[in-house]
Every structure is written in C-alpha cells, then in structure tokens.
C-alpha cells in the first residue's frame, strides 16, 4: 500500500497549477459569462501540451500515464479554469482522441492524433441520442453497408464540442437485430456530406463547452473510417466509461479544491458582528465538510486511475463510487460554497457561483448518479461477496 505520488508527478501538478492560474484562469470568467468556447484558452491548453497529454510522443503527445492526466485535470480545476473548457478537453482528448489511440489503426492514429494534440483539429464523441440516454445500447442511428463503406442516418444530442469539431467519433448500429453487438464506431470528418450540427444549446453550467446535436443524413463514410472493427462499438463505449470515472472527474476534484481555498480565504477576510465569519461554526463546519469531500474524492478518483495504469480490468464498483460521490456530494458542497459567500456567492463575479452551476453536470453526464446506483446495487444483489 502506497498513497504517495512520485516526485515528478507532484512537480507536474504544481507546474500546471501555477501556469493555469496565471495564463488560463483569468480568461475564464469572461468566457463563461458569454457562454462561449474560447479559441484563445484552447490554444493555450494546446500550447502547454494539455490536449495531447496521454498520446504517445510519436503522435504529438507526452505519453503521460492516467494518474498524471488526472493530476492535470485536478490542477486545472484547482487553478480556476472553468468546467466548460475542462469538459471540452475531456471530450476532445479522452472520448475522441484516446478512443482513436486505443482502437484505431496506425493510419487513423497518424492522421488524427497529432492534429488533436496540437489543437489544429477539435474532436468529439457522439453516443447519446434524443431517445437514448441512460439506455445507450438502444441507440437508433443506423449504418447501412454499401460497396465502399457505410451510410449513416440518425441524430445525436448533447454532444460536447460538436459545433466546433473537426473529428466526430459516432456510434451507429449496423443491424438493429444484433442489438449492442451491432453497434459500431465511425470516425466522421467535418465537411463530410450529410454531416451537420444543430444550433448550440444554452446550458446551465459548463457553459464554455459548445454543445449541440449532430445530424447524420445519408452521411457516407468510407470503410477505413470504422474504428476498432464492425460490432466493436459497445466495447469502445464501455471503455470510455473508465475515463469518465477518473480523468473526466478529476477537474471536478480541482474545482472543489478551488472552492475550498476560496471559502477558507473569504471566511478569514469577511467580518460580521465584529469578528471574522470563520469564528462562526455555521461557516467553519462547511469548510470542514468541503475538506473531507476533497480528500475522499481524491482517493476514489486516483484509485480508478491507478488501477487503469496497472492495466487492470475496470472495477465497476470503484468506478461508480467515484462518479456518484463526485456528482451528488460535489453538488451539495458547491452549494455550500455559495452559502459561505452569501449574497456575493449569488453573483457571477464570484467563481463559486460558476462552480455551483458547473458541478451539477457530474451527477448527469457520463452515466447519471441513478445509473451508478443501479450498477452497484445489481452487483451487490447478484451475490457479490461484499
């Protein structure tokens, strides 16, 4: 048993934190108020090597392990980078890029990964549909075989990065009768006839990630753009879940650390009734709860990341614990942070307000908290020896 980070990992987190606090966080408030994806912020993330972090060096990345990727997410959130850009990063680097890295052919990797790493291209992944959310395997987007490839038809929704994407990883079914065994992933490039995106949605939180529908109307995709082979789509989608439950959650941990720092500082500065509000237990108990939350969530997230680095099969219980805790308790804690700031916390100018809105996504995206409980309870009831 060893909970420590390697010295270079600690140094990396510190470096990312300091850099992001100086170079990225100051741009985030304005971007969030406009609800706009910022090419400026994106370019800085690319320039620092964040976008290609887990890709091997030969594909323009840094070859970072999963724990290190989580450290980057934690540091960025802690520095005050908004949840929207961090979500965009997750969709781009992990859901699109890492799926291509894990399941793509050499040609696919060579073509897409360096461009995703440099930020030249933006990537996204389309799984969810208007009629298929938690029950993802019931997706109805179809892929009909033709002589030279496939023709895709269907609509995807809530697709992070879709309005700004150049590379779309799209899940479609080649034969509905095969159910999830017919699900296949395709790489579809921007400009492909029949591919279009809808009007960007206005979201409650994570407002800087551009989100829209993806519409596929007789969209012809060549056979070489199948990712991982026909019928492999469901396995690819499930493998993405592992990323959801560590790397994509790590920014939530960072945002909670940001809130903890902000509240602890404010509680020292702010005076009412002639004394700093830290001396009121109604305030200080919230600080304690946030601290406990941050420590527990960190352990849960890095446990998943560590196991993944070791090449272990995903432990669905451990993954679900990190997701449900980040989602449900994270939202409660973000709300408490607003409460510490009182009226100021209700104002856009204070990042705790933004973090509150952003934090709600963790209980919804990438498998809702309810789905997490379904997974855990089924395993328990199936006779798993707890």
């Amino acid at each position: 048993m060893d909970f420590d980070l390697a010295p270079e990992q600690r140094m990396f987190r510190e470096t990312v934190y300091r850099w992001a606090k100086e170079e990225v966080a100051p741009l985030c408030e304005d971007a969030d108020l406009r609800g706009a994806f910022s090419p400026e912020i994106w370019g800085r993330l690319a320039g620092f090597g964040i976008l290609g972090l887990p890709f091997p060096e030969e594909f323009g990345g840094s070859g970072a392990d999963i724990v290190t990727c989580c450290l980057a997410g934690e540091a960025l959130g802690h520095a005050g980078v908004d949840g929207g850009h961090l979500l965009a990063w997750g969709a781009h680097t992990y859901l699109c890029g890492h799926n291509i890295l894990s399941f793509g052919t050499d040609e696919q990797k060579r073509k897409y990964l360096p461009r995703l790493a440099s930020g030249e291209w933006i990537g996204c992944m389309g799984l969810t549909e208007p009629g298929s959310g938690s029950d993802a395997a019931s997706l109805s987007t179809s892929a009909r075989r033709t002589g030279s490839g496939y023709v895709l038809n269907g609509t995807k929704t809530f697709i992070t990065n879709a309005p700004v994407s150049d590379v779309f990883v799209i899940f479609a079914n080649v034969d509905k009768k095969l159910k999830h065994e017919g699900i296949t992933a395709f790489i579809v490039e921007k400009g492909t006839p029949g591919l279009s995106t809808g009007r960007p949605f206005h979201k409650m939180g994570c407002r800087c990630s551009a989100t829209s529908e993806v519409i596929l109307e007789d969209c012809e995709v060549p056979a070489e753009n199948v990712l991982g082979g026909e019928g492999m789509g469901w396995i690819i989608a499930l493998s993405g879940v592992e990323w959801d439950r560590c790397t994509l959650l790590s920014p939530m941990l960072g945002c909670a650390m940001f809130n903890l720092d902000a509240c602890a500082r404010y509680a020292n500065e702010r005076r009412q009734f002639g004394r700093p509000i830290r001396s009121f237990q109604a305030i200080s108990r919230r600080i304690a709860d946030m601290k406990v939350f941050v420590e527990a969530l960190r352990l849960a997230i890095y446990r998943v990341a560590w196991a993944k680095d070791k090449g272990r099969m995903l432990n669905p219980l451990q993954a679900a614990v990190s997701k449900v805790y980040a989602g449900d308790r994270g939202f409660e804690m973000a709300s408490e942070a607003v409460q510490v700031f009182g009226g100021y916390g209700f104002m856009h100018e204070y990042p705790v307000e933004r973090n509150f809105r952003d934090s709600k996504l963790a209980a919804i995206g990438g498998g809702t908290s309810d789905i997490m409980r379904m997974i855990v309870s089924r395993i328990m009831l199936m006779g798993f020896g707890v």
Partner: protein
Amino acid sequence: MDYELEPSRVDFLKALGAHLAERVAPRRAQLDSCGPEERARLMRDNIAGLGTHGFLAAMSIGNPPDLVGHYLALEETAKACPATCLSARASAFLCAGAISLFGSPGAKETYLPRLLSGEAVGALAYSEPGSGSDLGALGAVAESDAGVYLVDGEKDIVVNAPIAEVFVVLARTPEGPSLLVVEGGARGLEIGPCLDTLGIRGAPVGGVRMRRCEAACLLGREPGMGLEQLERLLSMGAVGAAALCVGIAHACMEISTERAKSRSAFGKPIGMFQDVGFKLADMFTLVDLSRLLALRAAWAFDTGERDAPVRAACAKLFSAEACSKVANWGMQIFAGHGYLAGSPIERLYRDARFGEICERTSEILRLTIANEELDRFAGFA
C-alpha cells in the same frame, strides 16, 4: 502509488477473520444481552483469545508504527463484534499504546507483554463528569509524595474499567496534566458498577474513583506532558475509531444485502425495487469511502506525514456519520422485523450511534479540520 494490500496483510486478515468467526462472532448476541458478570467473563476471554494469536499486538501501535495493520485488525474485529473491537482496542491501543509511546523501558517491560498477550486487560481513564471534549477542565489531581504519585479524582466513563488490571490515568500534577499508570489492585482505587449503555453493550464500561490512590509510575520523562501525550495518542486513535465505524457499517451492509435478496414482496426480491437497491448502493459507497479515508490516514501516520492527524480526523468524522446513515438505512430495509429487540440490525443500529460520540464528537472534529484549513489563509485577513 499502490492502492492494494500486501499479500502478507491479506493472509493476516484471513487468519484473524477465521478466529473471529469461530470464537467471537457466535457470542456477540449473548454479550449484548447478558448481565455484567457474564459480560466481564466473556470479554476477558475474547481479549485473551485475541492475545494468544498475536492479534492484540497488531491492534496496538507497533514498532515501527503500523497503523495500517492496526486499522485492518480493528475493522475486521468490529465486523464480527463491535464490542470486542472497542474493548480490545481500549486495552491494546489506548492503554498499551500509551505505555509503548510514552513509558520508560521498565514500564514497557512490566506491562506490555501482559497486555499484548491478553493476560491482562488495560484501560485509559481520562474523561470526567465535568471534562469531556474540554480536557483542560480536568479535575483529577496527583501529587508527589516521596517520589510516589497519589491520585485523587473521578473518571466516569472508562471502557474496560470493570475488567482492567492496568489503568492509564490523566491527572493534574503541579506541572500540569500528566499520564500515570495505576494498577488494578492499587490501594485507594475503587471501580464503580458496570454501566448500561445504548449500544456496544458487550464492552464493560464503568467509573473509577481514586482516593489517595498510589500510581505505579508516570508516563514520560517529566510530568506535565499529559495533554500533549493524549493529543498524540487520540489523534492516532481516530484511525481505530474509524475502524470501529467501518466495521459496524460493513456488517449492516452485509446483512441488509442478504435481506434484500431473500425477502420478497409483490413477487420479487425487495432489493429489485430501486428504493431498496439504491440504499444498498449508497451503503456501499459510504463504507468504501470510509475505508479509503481511514487507510490513507493510517498510512500517513506510518510514513510520518505532517498532516496525518487531520487526515485521521477526516476519516473518523466521515466514517462515524456514514455509519449512522448506513445503520439507519439497514433498519429501514429490515423494517418491522428489524425493530424487534434482539434482531441483528437492532443491535448494530444501537452500536452505530456510538461512532459520532466516542473519542471526539463530530462537532469537535469539524472544528479541528476547519481550523486547520482556515489557518492556511489566516495571513490574508
């Protein structure tokens, strides 16, 4: 980084688990319901049994400190019988641990072999009718008389008092509060009657009254160090208190899961209804996170991390509150049958309530944790 237990620890836990299943678990209901004399006899026997296999030594502090092993041994024991966990811990950790941390070589030689083999039972007597969380308000006094300390005072809630042969006592010497060893047979020592408690009834608890009671020795090189010593001991102690909570919560989760599988309503196992099944999932989440926090804190002590005490405080706070919630959900799953006196969930439900009260209430822990965090930014005010 390595989140897994070493194989030697897994083997140790297997051996301990087997011992508990055979010798301890079968008595837990009896321990909960029997009278004081039988309780004392059974608990002495349980502690002696744990001593003969080296399990008590694992529950102490270890040299070098092995709080990971301490945590694991206590959690495993609490799963089988929370009362045995509490009693064994009071002897092996609170009493023997204090002696091994602060005692002279002579004191260690005199007391540790007996305490860690289970031949003798130990207790730590510190809280008083007027001094619980606020230990500075201590009333017991000790004065040196020709090189011997004579103690006067009263300790009202002392785990193991009715069965202990060795007491570590907090009393005020002229230099300040000090920890002293008082032997069970000492002149002037009076053990009060066995007290009845809401839960964890198998652990014998009683008051101690000392009148010109002769202490066997002082712990530490000089008097007046008692509060610092106790702080050090109890900050580590949060790890073991968390172990008790995790063990109770785990046991609740286990029997609730079985119940949700075996009990049917409206044609299916009740666990298949989301309002029941999702409670099981929440139980799992809280137990799992409690254990992670506690092991992390234990590891921090073992490796000498500066923030080990605050980590342990986080672990105890989280696991105690988790334990209350889990037991409450468990009672809900068992419903009417769980509410019957003598049902396993009824016993665990009463046991669980102890977590948030024992050795630093949740309120005190929140203050400790919050001040630590707030002080990071105190310079900005």
